[in-house]
């Protein structure tokens, strides 16, 4: 039982970070029909911003991390929208998808070429200590990661649900033509969504990289997991992406122990196939309405 609790908490911790990436993935789709296949690289690269700022420029880590969030908001949010999404969007969804795949490859190769092809140690925000609850040994970073990731998603939900700007963003996602006629500046709302995705990617990166080391190839797994989590939970709901992320985190962790470490990475794919066959709108998604 103690092993189960340990695995559950550690799975929820990883899953909540996957959920951050999945929520960003979902937001971009809802606001602008952008399927961002560079999302994995968006989560990978902020860790290298932190390293570049702290190791190369010598800034303290407490400064490098918030600067990284700002840098990510600008580069992965605003610049991505202006340079890739806006020019490609008028050509349709498929060219935009191809552009994001190319962008992902470009980011990955650039990190490999200009920083290092080797995994880099990455500082953790939290002490590497454990708590003992009964027989279960629970890692403090796991709990802290879970609290920060979930807190971020809850704050985002509150922003979208309880502010005027959030309501305008939801309206833009659900019916942009009417929202515009009612006076909503839909281009600004879409831009906000991209900025939020940049921030979510940076937070996910800072939380997850201490677990895996900073490596150019981290985005491959993270992007796939975010995509699967968004589809499994429901592509048109933030809480769907949240549930999808948590579910995959827990399944991934449990399967390695109780099923097979060899087939660990196959299980999320199997889950994806089953969901697409049985409930294509996802566990919490709806077949028509869109919301953020």
């Amino acid at each position, binding site marked *: 039982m103690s092993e189960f609790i340990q695995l559950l908490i550690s799975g929820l911790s990883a899953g909540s970070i996957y959920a951050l990436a999945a929520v960003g993935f979902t937001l971009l789709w809802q606001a602008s029909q952008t399927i961002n296949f560079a999302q994995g690289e968006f989560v990978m690269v902020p860790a290298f911003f932190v390293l570049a700022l702290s190791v190369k420029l010598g800034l303290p880590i407490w400064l490098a991390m918030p600067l990284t969030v700002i840098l990510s908001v600008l580069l992965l949010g605003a610049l991505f929208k202006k340079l890739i999404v806006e020019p490609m969007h008028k050509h349709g969804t498929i060219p935009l998808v191809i552009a994001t795949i190319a962008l992902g490859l470009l980011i990955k190769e650039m990190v490999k070429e200009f920083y290092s092809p080797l995994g880099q140690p990455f500082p953790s925000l939290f002490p590497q200590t454990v708590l003992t609850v009964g027989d279960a040994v629970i890692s403090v970073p796991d709990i802290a990661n879970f609290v920060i990731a979930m807190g971020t998603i809850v704050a985002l939900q509150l922003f979208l649900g309880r*502010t005027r700007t959030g309501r305008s963003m939801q309206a833009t996602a659900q019916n942009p033509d009417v929202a515009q006629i009612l006076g909503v500046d839909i281009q600004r709302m879409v831009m906000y969504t991209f900025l939020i995705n940049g921030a979510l990617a940076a937070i996910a990166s800072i939380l997850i990289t201490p677990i895996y080391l900073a490596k150019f190839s981290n985005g491959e797994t993270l992007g796939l997991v975010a995509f699967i989590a968004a589809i499994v939970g429901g592509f048109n709901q933030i809480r769907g992406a949240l549930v999808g992320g948590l579910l995959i985190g827990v399944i991934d962790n449990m399967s390695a122990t109780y099923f097979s470490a060899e087939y660990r990475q196959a299980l999320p794919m199997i889950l994806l196939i089953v969901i697409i066959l049985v409930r294509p709108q996802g566990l919490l998604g709806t077949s028509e309405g869109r919301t953020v």
Partner: protein
Amino acid sequence: MTETVLSVNHISKSFGGIHAVRDVSFEVSRGEVLGLIGPNGSGKSTLFNCVLGQLRPDKGDVHINGHRVANMRASHLNKLGVGRTFQQLSVFPQMSVLDNIILAGQEHHGTMASRLFGPSDAGLTEEADRMIAFFRLEHLRDEMAGSLSYGQQKLVDAAMAFMAGPSLVLLDEPAGGVNLTMLANLKERLETYNREHDTTFVVIEHNMEFVMSLCTRIIVLAEGAIIAEGTPEEIRSNQQVIDAYLGG
């Protein structure tokens, strides 16, 4: 002297070789309820879209409350005091009825800072509740708009059009797909609003009974041009209209 709210001056619009609207001019005064009728393809929707600035006319111009609306963004038109309802359902399905109606009014209030950090209802809950009560939607206030019936969504759409306190409301087939009971309710509510606020309506509608009983003046379009204009009684007895549209 009557105050002109909408002035359409010599509007023409073609698509390729098709003349959708041909030299159409008319004025609408404050408090007037004007009906635009005509068979399918007569140019009603094109004219409507030219008035709303969504289509740029080839010739002519449109003034609303004294402002020229050519090239004006839809959002600016809304701020100029123009409300509209839609032929297709236009509510935000994953938001409550209350949130839909607040949204329709919130862009007229506050600064950028208050949009981010001010009260989420922009101080509009009371006003939205009044509008909800006016359209007799109290029992649906907190329901998701997407879960309502077609007719109920049409009422929400109408409530949204009035939320910003417009001086001119363009109603695009408000009766389409609405059952008789709800239609009577909608008509009575529109008449009451018009009477109480002196708001100007321009209505595109195929339901003759609805348009004849609601409107004070009717313009009939055929093949992009005005073929008749007058009171409902005059239009009913106009032989050219009967031949072109109403039928024997």
